[in-house]
């Protein structure tokens, strides 16, 4: 079985981003970059399936600047087999990302594509669903459990939906996007890091793929939201109940 995992380089989720002077982007000085946390879960799931199904190959794909090599090397150090970096100076929007991935899927022919449910920078939550439609494949987003059948022709996926858990059966090939509880990603081991240096990391210029990546959405302006200021401390539970009842009038 071949599994493709999409990986995005994003600012560390603990970073409070600052808006750049141009007013449409963020300042990237002193920003620590990491693998998008949900993509890390997707990589882990790929590795777990590889451990269960012998002969499985896990291929990572990232789209972005050359610096995304760093995140791909981390994924290789976790245990992925090889990586592809599609070089693009311009940040691509979800539909363009899906078109690039579609092209790579056509070349690589994986049975399963794993993605994080959302990138924690633009928070769009779109690329996986869009890729599924472009390929005409079934999708199971927000996965908390993935079981691939013994014949590797279908998967049973439990999804985190509003009000509970939904289970779907989907034939492979398919798209699965990872939610928080799917697994706990491993750390790269020292031998893993050593091995990762020798693993294949192929670079392709986005222009060479011949897909339409022209943006359809334009950020006109980026603003800091109005700051909520802290109120005051209360001294006791009794005082809290009193202010909530008499002052805020919410209970």
């Amino acid at each position, binding site marked *: 079985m071949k599994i493709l995992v999409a990986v995005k380089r994003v600012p560390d989720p*603990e970073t409070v981003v600052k808006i750049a002077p141009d007013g449409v982007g963020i300042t990237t000085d002193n920003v620590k970059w990491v693998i998008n946390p949900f993509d890390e879960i997707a990589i882990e799931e790929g590795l777990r399936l590889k451990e269960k199904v012998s002969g499985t190959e896990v291929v990572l794909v990232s789209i972005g600047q050359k610096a995304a090599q760093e995140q791909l090397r981390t994924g290789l150090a976790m245990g992925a087999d090889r990586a592809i970096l599609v070089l693009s100076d311009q940040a691509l929007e979800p539909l363009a990302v899906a078109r690039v991935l579609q092209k790579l899927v056509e070349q690589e022919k994986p049975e399963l594509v794993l993605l994080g449910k959302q990138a924690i920078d633009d928070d*769009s939550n779109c690329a996986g669903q869009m*890729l599924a439609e472009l390929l005409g494949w079934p999708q199971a987003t927000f996965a908390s459990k993935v079981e691939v059948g013994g014949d590797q022709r279908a998967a049973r996926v439990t999804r985190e939906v509003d009000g509970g*858990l939904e*289970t779907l059966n989907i034939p492979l090939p398919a798209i699965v996007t990872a939610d928080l509880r799917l697994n706990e990603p491993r750390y790269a081991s020292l031998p893993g890091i050593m091995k990762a240096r020798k693993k294949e990391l192929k670079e392709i210029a986005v222009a060479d793929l011949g897909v339409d990546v022209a943006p359809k959405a334009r950020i*006109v302006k980026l603003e800091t939201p109005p700051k909520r200021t*802290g109120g005051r401390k*209360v001294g*006791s539970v009794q005082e*809290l109940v009193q202010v909530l009842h008499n002052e805020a009038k919410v209970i």
Partner: protein
Amino acid sequence: MGNVLVVAEHLHGKFPKTTLVGVEAGKQMAGHLGGKCLAAVLGQGIGALATELTEYGVDVVAVDGPPFAHYLADAYTAAIAEVAKQHDVEVVMAAATAVGKDLLPRVAARLGAAMGSDVTAIVDKATFKRPMYAGNAIATVALAGSPRVVSVRTTAFDAAKKGGEKGKVTALSMSPDATSTKMQFVEFAETKSDRPVLTEARIVCSGGRGLKNGENFTIYLEPLCEALGAAMGASRAAVDAGFVPNDLQVGQTGKVVAPELYIAVGISGAIQHLAGMKDSKVIVAINKDEEAPIFQISDYGLVADLFKAVPELTEEVKKLKA
């Protein structure tokens, strides 16, 4: 002058508040476009629901039949795209619920449309505001071309109210081929609770890692929720630690809530949690660490051991209500 199409989700024969929020946003959008607001109701045996929705002053397209008995992304996408084509739709919208988030990007890809996720304001017919970076930046985004696809944040618009001129119901006819699905619904394990739904509750009490384990959610937080008639929520840290199901998660990657009162218990206030609750009207934080960032955005803070303060608070609330 195109129309707006709102995907109207329903559960147990009812429209949840989130659907009505989508309808309200759709009506606002139609105002900007100068077109009509249509709503699509998909399912099996949904005639009565379709008629009910017309009372909100929208025309309803009913997509009724066995292929739509359960929500499945591929079949629903095909149907919505077909409705959009047949009804001169310029903007497809839905509330950014689990279904909305799953469905709309797929619809956008099918239509080759520009998409805006989790929109909090409509600026004009093609310009929207949406949060990015866990709500630390608000982007004004211009979407090019037609149609456009927009999911709306469920706390950002009011729920539509019944009234105005009643709409009409039309049925969508599609060939069975066009609605074929590769996906099979197996089951929905619904979390049963007598408490209000998290995204609809007037009061939300959330617990964090400070509660230490899942049992303490039951022992400490549940009685407080019951006394207040509140929904229960949790921080990502508490979900991560396995204390409670992800369904309760409030934050950037969970649910976004904006109740009248939000009580954060044992929650430090990580950026990603604040993204899901900072628009609440009144925020209360109970935490033993007086340096916890949650206090910086709370209207009322109580520095206390939650294992003492929460049972006390529960008793005081009961007394007040008695």
